[in-house]
């Protein structure tokens, strides 16, 4: 069967100032070769822009693992947790294919199918490759990706390249076995369990070898790293340099998730995760050497939908079994949706170019305007379209005189879930405000009177004036307004003090 490969599409590349690389922007892919941009332009996990418009799913076909990481607990199986390694039901390859077809028919945004666990996909080669083989045939318009710890990657590269998989993620937390021994208690290698430094050294060698082999074959490699304060936080800058030199095209530094109730080594031993500031600092330091990814939601091994959401509940196997799927029709509908989404993306990028021009003119008038963090409520589409009270997460942008850049996301508990949970609203709102610490404005489609007042008191200006506008444009406009009003002349803390006084 002839496969449709996005990288070979005839669509004209976005060039010149219509690409958001012009004048500085949040698009971390802007300086990549056009061939790579084409491959990732509709991949939510590889392009920040794309994640507003396109969806992904993971199928949990790979339960076995060949290493132990200190942030993982293999006993964990929970419907309410959202983090890697967690799933609700394990699928056979046949079930997984059925589920993918059902999701693709119902969520036109879906472009990508990944296998990411709950163990290591390449430690389950039969199940993983059987799933890919069937999907290549039955769902040729879906991109296939795989995420691995890298231990058995070198021996699987040949097989991977046969399956039309052009995106591979390797989790590389270190390139130094000394540090590795503090992250990986053991690996299973050549029929033995190998502990400590020795095991870590083998894992690191295999990861690096696999990375080189993949890039030599032209397969795109993203590197994931978990930032563990006091363990590998300083070391990750070196990791970033090394993996970039070997051809990885994107580095995703994620915060450690560690809670005692997860039963992981780090959780039980009280290892803390990084603060928002620490994470952002490290991402900025690594960015000098590498394209950084900042929009990762660290999703479950059976996640379904847009990155900020999980619609897995709608597609449990018992529900999937009853769904009638006309895949040909679904494929046509998806192609139509996705072409429109790409056009929207392109238009948003060119508009951003205009607002950046406006921003740069500020430079002439005010030389030392400080950067400002703003929180944005969006439910997708790259526009401000969510009510403050309905936001399960806020996207954080930094506006400065030269550009607007995406910094990351912060998850919150829903402020308003309606019904009888509202007695809790007071504390939930306070928690949200704490989560938004450091931000000076929050942009949303609408906001209630009470949260408005409390946000203002906390020095965070609510703003509902840019509903349905593209995010980066709106952030730039609010920044320009703040500059006009002289708000940027004062240091942040004193501005906040004045507001709350």
């Amino acid at each position, binding site marked *: 069967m002839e496969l449709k490969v996005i990288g070979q599409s005839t669509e004209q590349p976005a060039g010149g100032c219509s690409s958001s690389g012009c004048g500085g922007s949040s698009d971390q892919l802007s300086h990549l070769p056009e061939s790579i941009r084409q491959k990732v332009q509709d991949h939510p996990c590889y392009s920040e822009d794309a994640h507003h418009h396109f969806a992904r799913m993971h199928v949990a076909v790979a339960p076995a693992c060949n290493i132990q990481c200190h942030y993982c607990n*293999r006993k964990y199986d929970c419907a309410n947790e959202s983090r890697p390694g967690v799933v609700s039901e394990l699928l056979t390859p046949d079930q997984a294919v059925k589920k993918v077809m059902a999701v693709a028919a119902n969520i036109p945004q879906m472009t990508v199918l990944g296998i990411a666990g709950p163990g290591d996909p390449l430690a389950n080669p039969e199940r993983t490759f059987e799933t890919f083989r069937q999907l290549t045939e039955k769902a040729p318009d879906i991109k296939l990706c795989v995420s691995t710890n890298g231990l058995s990657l070198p021996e699987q590269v040949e097989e991977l390249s046969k399956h039309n998989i052009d995106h591979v993620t390797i989790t590389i937390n270190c390139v130094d076995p000394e540090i590795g021994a503090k992250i990986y208690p053991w690996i299973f290698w050549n029929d033995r369990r190998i502990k400590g430094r020795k095991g870590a050294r083998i894992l690191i060698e295999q990861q690096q070898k696999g990375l080189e082999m993949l890039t030599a074959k032209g397969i795109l490699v993203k590197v994931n790293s978990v930032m563990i304060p006091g363990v590998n936080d300083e070391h990750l800058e070196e990791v970033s340099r090394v993996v970039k030199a070997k051809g990885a095209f994107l580095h995703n530094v994620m915060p450690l998730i560690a809670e005692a109730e997860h039963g992981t080594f780090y959780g039980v031993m009280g290892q803390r995760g990084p603060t928002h500031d620490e994470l952002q600092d490290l991402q900025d330091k690594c960015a000098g050497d590498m394209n950084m990814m900042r929009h990762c939601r660290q999703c479950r091994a059976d996640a379904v939908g847009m990155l900020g959401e999980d619609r897995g509940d709608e597609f449990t196997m018992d529900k999937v079994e009853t769904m009638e799927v006309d895949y040909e029709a679904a494929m046509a509908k998806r192609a139509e949706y996705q072409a429109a989404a790409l056009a929207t993306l392109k238009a948003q990028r060119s508009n951003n170019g205009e607002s950046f021009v406006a921003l740069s003119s500020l430079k002439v008038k005010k030389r030392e305007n400080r950067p400002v963090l703003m929180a944005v409520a969006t439910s997708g589409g790259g526009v401000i379209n969510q009510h403050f009270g309905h936001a399960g997460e806020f996207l954080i942008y930094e506006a400065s005189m030269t550009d607007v850049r995406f910094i990351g996301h912060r998850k919150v508990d829903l402020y308003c879930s309606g019904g009888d949970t509202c007695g809790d609203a007071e504390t939930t709102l306070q928690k949200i405000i704490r989560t938004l610490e450091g931000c000076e404005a929050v942009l949303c489609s609408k906001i209630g009177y009470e949260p408005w007042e409390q946000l203002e008191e906390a020095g965070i200006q609510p703003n509902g004036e840019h509903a349905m506008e593209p995010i980066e444009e709106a952030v730039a406009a609010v920044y320009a307004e703040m500059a006009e009003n002289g708000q940027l002349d004062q240091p942040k803390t004193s501005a906040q003090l004045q507001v709350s006084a």
Partner: protein
Amino acid sequence: MAYEIIETCVNCWACEPLCPSNAILEARPHFLIDARKCTECEGDHADPQCASICPIEGAILNPFGEAANPPGSLTGIPPEKMAEVMAEIQAR
């Protein structure tokens, strides 16, 4: 003499393809080792394969009925620390 999988098994499949004697059965509520087939990997491997990849402490018993991987041996969490933290969580 044979190894045995007990109820703390999480059915992760890791051991099943490694067994040189095909003694591991996919079963519910958890995987099982056919005691008549298990050779303890004698003659095939230096270490019993199932117990060498199993990620769950205590899920596999050796022929003496002892945990092949006792508490703390795989995760590195000292058992007394685990007990302390679990008690703390339950008291919340």
